[in-house]
């Protein structure tokens, strides 16, 4: 020990100055954390589990974060937000496609693969965006660094800021970047770093249900990280950091019954409530018919407008360790039909044409509403190696063509190896009709080094995003779904014509030989002379 108490005495004197504030610091803690878990049994018997880990960082804590003192907010996240001037960030890792025709709209529905969009509050946004993607790539062990200028878009209408910014108009000061990696395969190595960001990791709270084997065994699996500014009180602006995980599991696969419980779905039970969570909600929502019994008695049960029971539970440290939520059904008949009563709009995208030279994209946009015309925003970012022909864009609808469908269009042509083609349209879908968009493209012939190792597999074209405002009575539970609903189409796999990867040298040699032949013969022709030789007959 170097320091004698003697001199530390002085030090402690000085410390007394700090004590006041220190004690104050104890008193005010404006950080809160709560967990929220919803099980919804879908009409077709599948069980949708939505995990939400919500952290609210108040102005004071945020101020501490600004000079790098982190308590509830993970340090890595805080650093990223500060270093790259991120105001709002939405990152989702998704496997499978959300079947919105059968399952309705989900706020957690995302495009397959990796989808990242972020609002920046900084200059030199492109540099920061690059840094952000690289940092996130390192944080989540994903190949996010492949999001570069050539697949980054700036939508105008589809991805509005979701945080509350007070009175200032965010679009004026903020800048948006959107990128997606449809080909990215999501797996455990992305989940593990994601769970390490949780306050209780996977050791307590609802996260203790995470069982990678089961999670990735589902029909749909989406893992989200969302950061947005909030205004807690007039003390100033805070920050909300939400981690979401939604997974659709199928109890019928095990034994052909709809019955499910935590242990049957995850082979786990909730160990205990997370000590740091101020409250932990669990809601089980099931159709009220046919009759069903809940495994554990809820605090309250209420029926919503769409004859669905939702049972509410609260977890805390006193909850017995082996609580196992679940539902047992009288009978196990399921309804595979498509429910149109609440979810009016759905979209389906597919590729047209054949051959390696050119093709087309077609999107079926359906509006099932019997009477109302619905406004949507269609967004598509298509990589440069599909050369779009905008003049071939046409919208066909079965409904009367009296009013045009495409109200407004924003198109940014692609630059080769530079940026994608971005197409964004305000459309009005006539009531109870199907509108089909057609768009033709040429497939570019790219250098043989630009092909991926599995060249003949082809290229994934990211999902198109359809944004619209849900009709007031339509969402299943209003406080869940933000006014803006987003549904994503399928990703399309496009195969480009491939050169022969084995023979660069042959090509070089052959072509050069031809050139040389031309040069040699013409040069001789020009520099040599015909000379007579007389032959005596």
């Amino acid at each position, binding site marked *: 020990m170097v320091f004698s108490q003697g001199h530390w005495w002085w030090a402690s004197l000085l410390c007394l100055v700090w004590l006041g504030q220190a004690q104050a610091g104890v008193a005010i803690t404006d950080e809160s954390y709560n967990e929220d878990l919803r099980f919804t049994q879908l009409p077709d018997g599948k069980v949708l589990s939505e995990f939400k880990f919500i952290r609210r960082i108040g102005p004071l804590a945020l101020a501490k974060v600004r000079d790098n003192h982190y308590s509830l907010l993970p340090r890595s996240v805080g650093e990223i937000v500060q270093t790259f001037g991120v105001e709002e960030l939405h990152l989702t890792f998704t496997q499978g496609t959300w079947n919105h025709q059968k399952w309705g709209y989900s706020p957690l529905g995302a495009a397959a693969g990796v989808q990242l969009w972020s609002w920046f509050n900084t200059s030199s946004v492109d540099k920061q965006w690059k840094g952000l993607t690289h940092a996130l790539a390192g944080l989540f062990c994903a190949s996010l660094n492949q999001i570069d200028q050539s697949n980054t878009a700036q939508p105008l209408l589809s991805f509005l800021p979701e945080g509350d910014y007070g009175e200032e108009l965010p679009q004026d000061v903020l800048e948006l970047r959107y990128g997606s990696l449809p080909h990215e395969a999501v797996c455990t190595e992305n989940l593990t770093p994601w769970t390490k960001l949780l306050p209780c990791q996977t050791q307590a709270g609802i996260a203790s249900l995470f069982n990678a084997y089961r999670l990735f065994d589902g029909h749909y699996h989406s893992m989200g990280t969302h950061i947005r500014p909030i205004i807690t009180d007039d003390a100033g602006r805070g920050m909300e950091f939400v981690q979401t995980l939604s997974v659709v599991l199928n109890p019928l696969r095990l034994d052909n019954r709809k019955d499910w419980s935590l242990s049957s779905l995850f082979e786990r039970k909730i160990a205990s409530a997370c000590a740091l969570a101020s409250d932990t909600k669990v809601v089980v929502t099931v159709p009220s018919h046919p009759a069903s019994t809940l495994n554990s008695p809820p605090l309250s049960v209420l029926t919503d407008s769409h004859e669905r029971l939702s049972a509410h539970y609260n977890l805390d440290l006193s909850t017995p360790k082996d609580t196992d939520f679940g539902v047992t059904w009288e009978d196990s008949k399921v309804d595979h039909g498509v429910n149109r009563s609440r979810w009016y709009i759905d979209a389906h995208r597919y590729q047209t044409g054949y051959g390696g030279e*050119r093709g087309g994209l077609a999107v079926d946009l359906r509006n099932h509403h019997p009477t109302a015309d619905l406004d949507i925003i269609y967004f598509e970012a298509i990589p440069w190696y599909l050369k779009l022909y905008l003049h071939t864009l046409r919208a066909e609808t079965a409904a009367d063509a009296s009013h045009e469908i495409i109200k407004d269009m924003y198109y940014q042509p692609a630059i080769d190896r530079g940026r994608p083609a971005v197409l964004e349209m305000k459309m009005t879908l006539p009531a109870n009709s199907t509108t089909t968009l057609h768009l033709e493209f040429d497939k570019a012939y790219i250098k043989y080094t630009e092909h991926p190792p599995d060249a003949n597999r082809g290229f994934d074209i990211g999902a198109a995003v359809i944004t619209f405002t849900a009709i007031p009575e339509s969402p299943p539970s209003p406080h869940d779904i933000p006014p803006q609903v987003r549904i994503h189409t399928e990703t399309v796999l496009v195969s480009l014509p491939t050169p022969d990867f084995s023979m660069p040298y042959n090509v070089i040699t052959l072509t050069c030989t031809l050139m040389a032949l031309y040069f040699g013969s013409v040069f001789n022709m*020009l520099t040599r002379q015909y000379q007579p030789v007389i032959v005596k007959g």
Partner: protein
Amino acid sequence: MRADPFTAELKVPAARSAVAQSLSRPNSEDPVVRIPVWIGVVLRIILFFFTNASSFLQLRVEVSTPVTSWKRLREGLYLYQNGIAPYEGGVFHQAPLLLAIFNFLPPILIPILFIALDYAIARGLVEIAQYKRKLQIAEIWPAPTSDDSLIDAVPVEAPKPEIPSPENTPADSVAWLRKPASDDDVLQSTDDIPQSVHKRKNVNFASQEEDIVPPWLANDNCRLVQGDSAHAPINAPQLKPSDPTQPVDVILHPEDIGAMYLLNPYSIITCLSQSTLLFTLIAIVGGIQYAIKGNRNASMLFIAVAAYLSFYPAMMMAPAILLLSTQTSRPVMQALKSALPLFLAFLVALLGLSYLLVGTWDFLPSTYGVILSVPDLTPNIGLFWYFFIEMFEQFRPFFLCVFQIMVFIFVIPIALVFREHPLFVAYATTAIMAIFKSYPSVGDTALYLAFFTMHQELYKYMRNMFLVFNALFFASILGPLFHYLWVYAGSGNANFYFAITLVFGLAQIILLTDTGHALILREWERLHPDLRRKRVELVHQ
């Protein structure tokens, strides 16, 4: 164009029969049935309006390249009309003024416009051909001074070459002193056997008309020989054969050139595909045409337009200036000095106009930049695309430079060597363009084949015509086939189509050099009157 070899072979005897009849009916042309120009126009109209050939051909790689494709033009037009900068994106690479043209053109007129363009090209070619015909007639073959005295004068060096047996037969050795056709034999006696056999036909043919030879020898020809070209009578064909040692050429019929261009399948599909290349072609043809007329401004304007549309035609300056200098009878350098500033002025004016049209200079990298740096590797009949798909990244810029230099390297030398034959220079430059430009299409081939057809007098000096035209023919058939196998059926890979483009290029290169050699040979023969009578071998050294 595939017909050409045969017509070429046919016309030689035709010529001789014409000569035969010219005794009885002085002002008659050779009675070969000839197709009028309008047939080609009718054909186009039919194909345009009664078949969907156009919409099919618009997408063919052989016809529509990234820099001429009609579909891309429409895209550019669409963007332009909707206020999106057309040159920002990576799709549209064509000159801005084209936008201006099609911006106001009602769609129904578009096919008409393209047919009209093609017809105009044909007419221009016909005019050029008329000039060529004049040259042909006025062409003067100095007569040999006298026969035997010179033989000893000429040094005899070479070892006695082995001569195909027929020439050694006494009958022939008697014959060839008088027969014009036979000196072909001598000139080409180094050829392989099939050629000389094929020549024997001419000999026999010629020998059939021996009875009509005496009257020609009767009339004296020295006045014509001394007389300069200016006073050469227009209906010279009757007089020409008066020098028995000069080859008898058919005097080309200008209408044929137009017809052959319009009936050339290459030009037909180019027109049907509505490729904007036609604008370049007509500019080139116009440039030559007005150069022939001696109208410097017009010809420079046209060539400037051509260069503005697709860059490479700048090299058409060479033939144009040669023509201007011969027509205005001024030295070449002087003509160049007077013409070059004009050309540049027009070019700058056109670029400025385009700038005014689109309001930005973005179109420069997006048109000429693309032509020079070849970022779009869509297959075509040229040599660039596959080479640069496979080329290693760090050599890419270097080989781009090399290939572009190769296009231009021989323009000036050719202009130097063939100074006396501006039309041939035009033929050579158009051919080089068609073979080596970065985004060639069969339309370019069609143009220089038209120029090729004007040089019929060279056919009988050419050696590989058969090979060349077969290669072109089969390449034209197999190209689409292999492209289909690669891109659609997936049963063949890119190398198939690449190989075909190589064959196509090879054939054209051979054609070019062969024609050049033919011209040199003929010139030699023309300018060495006294050796024409001898049995001479030529060595190229």
